[in-house]
């Protein structure tokens, strides 16, 4: 994989200057490559990385397994697109799994809120055969970052 992508994934605030130094490429090349990644939809944008467990009133998150009947022609795509439209839905992934097809992350104000959304909005879609809802209790690691309080550097000063 291109190291430029993994560096930007780790920290989007890295400047072109810094990236150019680290990757030993000219600043022009780095700029050009970033532009190309944006055009081709590899780089979609920048967001702030939030630890929701530390945000007051941030609500609840649930993972919903959906068993779905694939449609003629479109397979799972059309259903997935439809589900993606809900603002309550954070992620939608097609899985290679034993007993379900789509894994959907839903965020809501309360457990009840999420449960209602699932039963009224998702379970009622014709192609959805069944749902299983799992509520998230605690986040330990997200996007490659450990969220538990950082351990102090235990290395001592040595020459």
């Amino acid at each position, binding site marked *: 994989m291109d190291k430029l992508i993994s560096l930007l994934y780790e920290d989007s605030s890295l400047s072109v200057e810094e990236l150019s130094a680290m990757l030993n490429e000219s600043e022009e090349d780095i700029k050009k490559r970033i532009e190309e990644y944006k055009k081709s939809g590899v780089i979609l944008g920048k967001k702030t990385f939030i630890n929701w467990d530390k945000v007051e009133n941030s609500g609840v998150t649930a993972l919903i397994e959906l068993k779905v009947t694939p449609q003629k022609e479109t397979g799972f795509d059309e259903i997935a697109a439809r589900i993606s439209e809900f603002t309550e839905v954070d992620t939608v992934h097609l899985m290679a799994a034993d007993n379900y097809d789509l894994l959907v992350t839903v965020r809501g104000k309360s457990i009840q809120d999420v449960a209602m959304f699932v039963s009224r909005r998702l379970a009622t879609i014709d192609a959805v055969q069944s749902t299983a809802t799992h509520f998230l209790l605690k986040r330990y690691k997200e996007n490659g970052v450990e969220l538990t309080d950082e351990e102090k550097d235990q290395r001592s*000063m040595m020459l």
Partner: protein
Amino acid sequence: MINYEELLNENIRKVKPSGIRKFFDIANEMEDVISLSVGEPDFTTPWHVRAAGIESLEKGRTWYTPNRGFAELRSEISNYYKRRFNVEYSAEKEVLVTVGGSEAIDLCIRSLVSPGDEVLIPQPCFVCYEPMTCLAGGVPVIIETKAEDEFRLTPEQLEEKITDKTKLLILPFPNNPTGAVMKREHLEGIAEVLRKHNIIVLSDEIYAELNYGEERHVSFAEIEGMKEKTVVVNGFSKSYAMTGWRLGYALGPAELIAKMTIVHQYAIMSAPTTAQYAAIEALKNGDEDIEKMRSEYDLRRRLMVSSFRRMGFDCFEPEGAFYVFPCIKNTGLTSDEFCSRLIREKHVAVVPGTAFGESGEGYVRVSYSYSIAHIREALKRIQEFLEDIKK
């Protein structure tokens, strides 16, 4: 009252306590200090290596090992030097497993140096060679490497310092603190001088795997005719992120290794058993780990050199180890002043170059054995510090 000073061995009295401790104490007391001062990897030992150590403990393998180290480990070390640096050593007679590279250095100096013998030490360098020479009753002869030579030892400098008392030359490359490396052509130059003299070389190759140039590390023992004059010191600390396991080794002529083994046998018995099991795994299956860490260090190295240069420091490009050694003379401060003020005013710890010998004056050692985010924050503060100085 007993006067302990009087009782002490005269050689230990010659060794002065390091002035750098004071500075470290300030840094250690500070709560929010951002350090760029450590001399060890930020990576933890690769999991499969730790697992091998754990497994040996689970199986209750908690006894001494043979004095020289496990035969399997010695044979893997021998394979490793052949595989990566093209030098062949007999696992049977030319390999000794030690407690870190440090012990191997100590054994080599103690086995060779008699009172009055001169030991050539290129500085700036790691801090142990000079005191260990003194402890053996030897005379340290310092050779100051220069920024204009990219901190390499030159044949002319070497020739100039050789006398009929010279016993040993320390060759500490890739170098801590400068990050300098000696490439094949530079080593050839040194070898050319040594062919005329009866001098042993202690080649401290502990940073051999952390070499960022186009050419891989060249062991001094690989240079024609030099193997019989060289004791190579290496270990697991830097290449496999295993500092706390305390495991290193010496490679050299059978006669010398045999004598070093005698000292080791009486002083130490054998290197830590658990660490030896882990090290076997590291050598068998750890080449990929080395590469992963090396390429990560390389990114940080480039980031640091370019940032220091952009700030206006004269910063020679280090091709080895994990330090940069920028020149701070244009700030008008001494190394000590620079570091003391930087830690007091911006809570950033870097090490004064003088900790590595007087010739380090005007320089500071900055370690990049930290995450990129950590390095960026520290660099930002150093930039602010510079602006404050200029006011």
